[in-house]
């Protein structure tokens, strides 16, 4: 497959030809492969390494209507110092908030090295005009966001209007300036793995720096097979175009086991190159405390109760 990528966005037909020319994904086979990788047994030293890597990859997220400056401040403190009792615990990758909370997060995280990510583009549904989406992106970037998590227009995608989706992503990317763009596919609404692969390609072609599974508001979210399909997509995209794109599963990653399964998937699908917070993120919040508990258990041989870890 050697698509002519230069003029791919010249028309909806050209885009459709390219996306529908991608190899299909067999659901049974993809599920089996993901399940098999889920049986990998990660113990002792490799588990310790995986836990610290997973912590460094977390995009600590709060996306509630009830979010307040206080809540965001608390989350930022947690991001910088996940375990106040243990300074050897690494910082997380980023804090992810709604646009109006960006300035609070920027303030709280100044100088910490933890990045600020903001959802934008009428998250989570994406049902608004392009002008509003671009304006919202510009607002978040202006407030200091390092990363923008946008949603694609699933309605346009499912009705075959790939060009509309492409142009929206490209416009938001332009509005991002130097901020990194993560493109949320909302795989739970795309339903088929063929669609997931096509949407991932569409996002990459349009300039996305990351492809992200879900908003966390729709089930199913970051399943193993969906993440597998997206990893295969970024691997193929790199080999064809030479451009490397990151992957962020988000939603439903609750336990250390879930997180480690994701890392195994990365390790055995795309390899070392993506085992880095610059190229792989875990969109989650509750998983952090489980990672901390497992980390302490591994170091001390004992489990501490949940009251020994902060709820933020």
């Amino acid at each position, binding site marked *: *497959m050697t698509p002519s990528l230069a003029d791919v966005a010249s028309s909806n037909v050209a885009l459709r030809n390219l996306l529908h020319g991608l*190899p*299909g*994904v*067999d659901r*049974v*086979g*993809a599920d*089996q*492969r993901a399940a098999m990788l889920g*049986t*990998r*047994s*990660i*113990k*002792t*030293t*490799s*588990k310790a*390494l*995986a836990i610290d*890597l997973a912590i460094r990859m977390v995009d600590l997220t709060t996306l509630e209507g009830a979010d307040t400056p206080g809540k965001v401040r608390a989350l930022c403190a947690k991001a910088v110092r996940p375990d106040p009792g243990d300074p050897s615990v690494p910082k997380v990758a980023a804090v992810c908030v709604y646009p109006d909370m960006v300035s609070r997060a920027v303030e709280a995280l100044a100088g910490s090295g933890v990045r600020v990510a903001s959802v934008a583009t009428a998250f989570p549904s994406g049902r608004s005009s392009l002008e509003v989406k671009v304006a919202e992106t510009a607002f978040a970037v202006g407030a200091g966001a390092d990363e923008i998590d946008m949603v694609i227009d699933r309605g346009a995608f499912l009705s075959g209007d790939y060009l509309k989706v492409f142009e929206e992503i490209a416009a938001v990317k332009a509005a991002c300036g130097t901020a990194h763009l993560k493109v949320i596919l909302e795989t739970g609404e795309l339903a088929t793995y063929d669609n997931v692969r096509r949407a991932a390609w569409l996002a990459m072609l349009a300039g996305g720096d990351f492809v992200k599974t879900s908003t966390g508001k729709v089930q199913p979210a970051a399943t193993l097979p969906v993440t597998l399909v997206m990893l*295969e997509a970024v691997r193929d995209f790199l080999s064809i175009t030479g451009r490397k794109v990151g992957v962020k599963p988000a939603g439903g990653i609750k336990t250390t086991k879930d997180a480690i399964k994701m*890392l*195994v998937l990365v*390790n*055995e699908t795309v390899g*070392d190159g993506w*085992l880095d917070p610059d190229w792989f993120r875990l969109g989650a919040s509750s998983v952090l405390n489980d990672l901390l508990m497992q980390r302490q258990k591994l170091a001390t041989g004992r489990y501490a109760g949940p009251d020994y870890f902060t709820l933020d």
Partner: protein
Amino acid sequence: MFEYAPAPESRAVVDIRPSYRLFVGGEWTDSQGGTAHKTVNPASEEALSEVVWATEADVDRAVGAARKAFGVWSALPGSERAKYLFRIARIIQERSRELAVLETLDNGKPIRESRDVDLPLVAAHFFYYAGWADKLGHAGYGPDPRPLGVAGQIIPWNFPLLMLAWKIAPALACGNTVVLKPAETTPLTALLFAEICQQADLPPGVVNIVTGAGETGAALVNHPDVNKIAFTGSTEVGRQIARSVAGSGKRLTLELGGKAANIVFDDAALDQAVEGVVNGIFFNQGHVCCAGSRLLVQESVAEELLEALKRRLTTLRLGDPLDKNTDIGAINSAAQLAKIRELSEAGEAEGAERWSPACPLPERGYWFPPTIFTGVAQSHRIAREEVFGPVLSVLTFRTPAEAVEKANNTPYGLSAGVWTEKGSRILWMADRLRAGVVWANTFNRFDPTSPFGGYKESGYGREGGRHGLEAYLDV
């Protein structure tokens, strides 16, 4: 690099005795004149235990015990026989970890396979045929089909316990009694199964296990009081057996070798096709009669597929079979390793190009790296002879008709795989492929409800499913 720390399954769950006797008439008995032989762990060459190679006199005793038990067992109502089979199935599930570890120790296959594939299938097979025991009148073989009598069963070393289940479960469900000979390199799970028969209170003599090699097998095949021979193994031995039983009135089913084609079209789901090809030939170190040992790939996608396949092979984990993260275990025996090496060298000598991923092999034990041959022609030995190892021959085709022609151009006919997103092409291919099993967009999937067996030199008779009953009924 994300290295996985060793994650070995514990050997402590299994208790291997220093030596085993023969299981005849429900108890452990001494051999009359048989010699003791070691059975080794192929991953380390460590001796695990000693078993006796049964003599003609031993086989005669075992057949006698089976004959004696046949009267009682065949007279039991099917629903009563079912109870025993259900009980055996449940005990297998309860002791599955123990059985899986023992299988891996004696055979060399990765614990992931014995735990996730072999043992669940073994239990499922007993459950499935337990269900048939009281419904034989509805199987399509008349209102009250009768059993054959004493079945002599000879099984191979690649799936020791699973092949035992394929043989014993339908035989018992139909009311036969059995004398089973496991392979000489992998007798231990069959002997543990004998303990399970005792634990299940199976009437004495219904199942008899005689260990040994070719001579023991020959004694069983030639015994005049055996009514049925069921054999899984090489085509060469299958021929000898067919000659031996010819004219004796014994019923015979043979499940022999294969040289299956895994056919990948250019519209296949590529990543899953690669997985299927890997699973087709490297599952169980390629010690699978239905292994997809010939990859037929459409020329328009050959380069892309091969590149993906090679990339995938570099992630295969070869090593300690008891490690839960091992994908490829040990070759079962020195003799088999020699055969794989010989055929691989022939492949190179005939001009095919050999490739293996960088893959350090353990120092002790029998090991062979996953290997691909490209530029293989139909006339090469590696395209025609069964290697029975982790060696894949890659050939190309241009049209569906050529794929069918090449796939069928083999003396074997056990299985085939078709990879395409086009449903109508799957059906078109399945119609024309002369193979007992045609997998579509998958490979090496087994289920007790599905009949299995070959065309041509791959044998005759079917095992599994309703069809599998026929081999053990007088119809």
